[in-house]
């Protein structure tokens, strides 16, 4: 029999590779060869499964067994038990955090149950370095159909009808963008793929490029056909070496197959793609800054209009879309606008990929239909809050998104609802916080990021955010006043109202939303000088409860600054003027004799 009976899919995404998935692939192949099973069982390196926290991830088909946290040392058991004897290796199965039961297949894992994978359809399924596998999954058929059967206008109409909106954060209707660029007359136009994913913790674009680079290439060619461009540029951050390599491999294969280059599929349409590297500045995700960076200038945004559609790269009409947006395109063409627009809400169609992180049980990359609620994402897919703590807030939209509360949990997620709730879709970061998180510190934390990543061009972002951060710092140190809270509000609103680009205009969102939703917590910091979540070190006081202290001297011996004194077998005492609030005594005390005031 020519075909193998079993495929073992090993995740080759950056996360899993970091925990030796490449070695697992090598060892599996060697072990199978040892047992002369190399013809029966194929080992395939795929893109990301999304469940990175549990990586390296290995999936066995056709029985669909899903192994997590696999080590190279587990390879022998997988071959011995599963391949030879057909018994899943139980210890490697995913355990449901709710009841600790092992789950064999992906379809039974909560993390995957509510997901609909369109943009990520091939991630974790195909070998990203093999164009044939992409073709087997309808790859390049959409491009073929577009250039041989449809006019550019018809394709644009399909994209418009699908209701697809930009997945990079702005949510601008993709079809409309294409149409505008198409309607600008110029001999030279460009298609740009924005792969400058900058939101901390978000990695959907990287995953798509690593796991399914051809989908982006195909979509860019379709876009080029629609707008009248023969050149595509992928602006990708240089810190994504694996994505760059996979993309390069994919580009070479597409050229070899004639799916890029001149006269594609005999249609007379020419298109090719170049790669441009970014140095990883967050602001270069903003399309005008991105274009300036590609042109060799300082990565700074400029005022729009003119929009890139009119005057973009080298002053030519340029259509900029993000990786995830592009990844949706071939599916829309193949399955139709109607099919796509059935998924989602009235104004936000299709799915969105989120990087779910923070204090949830299941952390990873998920793709869910628009309109799903935050509750479903956090409690079903995410498996609820870690360690049985209470949910406090969820921040969506990357560093400049707002922090939402339990009253927003049942809001269907889409572009408009998130904005109405005081946050945004952004590129799809989603960070869950529990009762132990101090919201003042959280907003300070996010602001630190925008502060670092601001280009410094406009005053409100350059100096305004600095001042906001200074005020927040004051508050977390217990030196804030009620006037400072008012000042935070006023300044945040001015920054929103006057900043040049999206980065500045959204940077105060964490501050504004936390002030609105957690005002009491702010107030406690400035009026009572306390941090209710017990996170602001300067506001904490470690005290020994004399009645519970046995005088065991453990705290005394462990204090790094000798702030604790006392006789053996009698209650000890912490000198507050010396204490650095490291919390070691609290952790070490076996008698719960130390309290945080």
């Amino acid at each position, binding site marked *: 029999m020519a075909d193998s009976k079993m*495929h073992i899919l090993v995740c080759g995404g950056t996360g899993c590779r970091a925990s030796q998935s490449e070695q697992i692939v090598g060892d599996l192949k060697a072990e199978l060869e040892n047992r002369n099973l190399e013809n029966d069982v194929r080992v395939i390196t795929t893109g990301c499964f999304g469940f990175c926290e549990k990586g390296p991830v290995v999936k066995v088909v056709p029985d669909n067994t899903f192994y997590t946290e696999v080590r190279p040392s587990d390879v022998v058991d997988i071959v011995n038990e599963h391949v030879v004897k*057909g018994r899943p290796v139980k210890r490697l199965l995913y355990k449901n955090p709710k009841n600790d039961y*092992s789950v064999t297949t992906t379809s039974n894992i909560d993390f995957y149950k509510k997901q609909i994978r369109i943009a990520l359809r091939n991630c974790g399924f195909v070998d990203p370095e093999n164009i044939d596998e992409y073709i087997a999954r309808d790859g390049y058929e959409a491009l073929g159909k577009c250039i041989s059967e449809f006019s550019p206008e018809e394709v644009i109409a399909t994209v418009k009808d699908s209701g697809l909106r930009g997945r990079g954060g702005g949510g601008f209707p993709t079809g409309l963008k294409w149409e505008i660029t198409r309607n600008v007359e110029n001999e030279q136009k460009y298609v740009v793929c924005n792969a400058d994913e900058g939101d901390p913790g978000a990695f959907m674009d990287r995953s798509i490029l690593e796991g399914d680079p051809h989908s982006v290439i195909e979509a860019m060619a379709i876009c080029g056909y629609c707008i009248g461009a023969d050149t595509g540029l992928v602006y990708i951050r240089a810190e994504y070496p694996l994505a760059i390599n996979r993309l390069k491999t994919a580009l070479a294969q597409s050229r070899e197959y004639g799916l890029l280059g001149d006269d594609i599929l005999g249609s007379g349409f020419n298109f090719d793609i170049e790669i441009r590297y970014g140095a990883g500045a967050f602001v270069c995700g903003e399309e005008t800054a991105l274009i300036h960076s590609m042109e060799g200038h300082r990565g700074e945004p400029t005022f729009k209009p003119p929009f890139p559609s009119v005057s973009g790269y080298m002053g030519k009409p340029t259509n900029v879309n993000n990786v995830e947006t592009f990844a949706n395109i071939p599916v829309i063409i193949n399955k139709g606008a109607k099919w796509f627009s059935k998924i989602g809400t009235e104004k936000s169609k299709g799915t969105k990929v989120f990087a779910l992180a923070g204090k949830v049980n299941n952390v990873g990359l998920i793709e869910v239909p628009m309109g799903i609620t935050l509750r479903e994402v956090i409690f079903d897919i995410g498996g609820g809050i870690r360690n049985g703590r209470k949910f406090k807030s969820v921040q969506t939209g990357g560093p400049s998104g707002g922090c939402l509360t339990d009253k927003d949990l049942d809001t269907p997620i889409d572009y408009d609802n998130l904005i109405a709730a005081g946050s945004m879709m952004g590129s799809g970061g989603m960070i869950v916080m529990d009762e132990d998180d101090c919201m003042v510190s959280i907003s300070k934390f996010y602001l630190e990021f925008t502060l670092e990543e601001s280009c410094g061009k406009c005053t409100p972002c350059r100096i305004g955010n600095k001042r906001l951060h200074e005020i927040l710092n004051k508050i977390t140190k217990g030196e804030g006043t009620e006037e400072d809270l008012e000042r935070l509000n006023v300044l945040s609103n001015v920054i929103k109202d006057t900043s040049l680009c999206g980065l500045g205009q959204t940077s105060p969102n964490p501050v504004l939303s936390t002030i609105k939703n957690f005002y009491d917590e702010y107030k406690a910091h400035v009026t009572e000088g306390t941090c209710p979540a017990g996170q602001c070190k300067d506001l904490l006081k470690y005290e020994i409860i004399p009645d519970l202290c046995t005088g065991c001297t453990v705290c005394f011996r462990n204090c790094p600054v000798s702030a604790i004194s006392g006789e053996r077998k009698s209650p000890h005492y912490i000198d507050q003027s010396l204490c650095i609030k490291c919390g070691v005594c609290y952790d070490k005390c076996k008698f719960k004799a130390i309290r945080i005031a």
Partner: protein
Amino acid sequence: MSKKVKSLADLKKIKSDVQQKMKLREQGDHAEQIVQIKVAMATCGIASGAKEVMEFIIEELDFKGVDAVVTQTGCMGYCYAEPTIEVIVPGQDPVIYGFVSRDKAREIIEKHVIQGEMIDGIIPVTHKTIDDEEN
């Protein structure tokens, strides 16, 4: 030889060629919706010819054009009745057959899988799978 794809039809031909090689994965992805046949492949099963039966089943299904997943599984505990196979038709309870020879296998595929009729040789189910435990 140039690998250039010259037309959409060309592309579709490549597609159908490679799809065969990926069938296992496609099936695995929606295993609940298609027929699954698990062949018990522990020492006892192999000794009784389970390996040959499994290969026969795969060929027969292919020959009859039935979309089904064939996997091996561990000992089901019916060592006296090897080779044993488990047949799962979507929407129905799993059924286990014992003493499955090539002829028996052909009959199971013809009657049970294609026509939906149970035939002789069913072993009553006494165990639970790991997935059941969860529910």
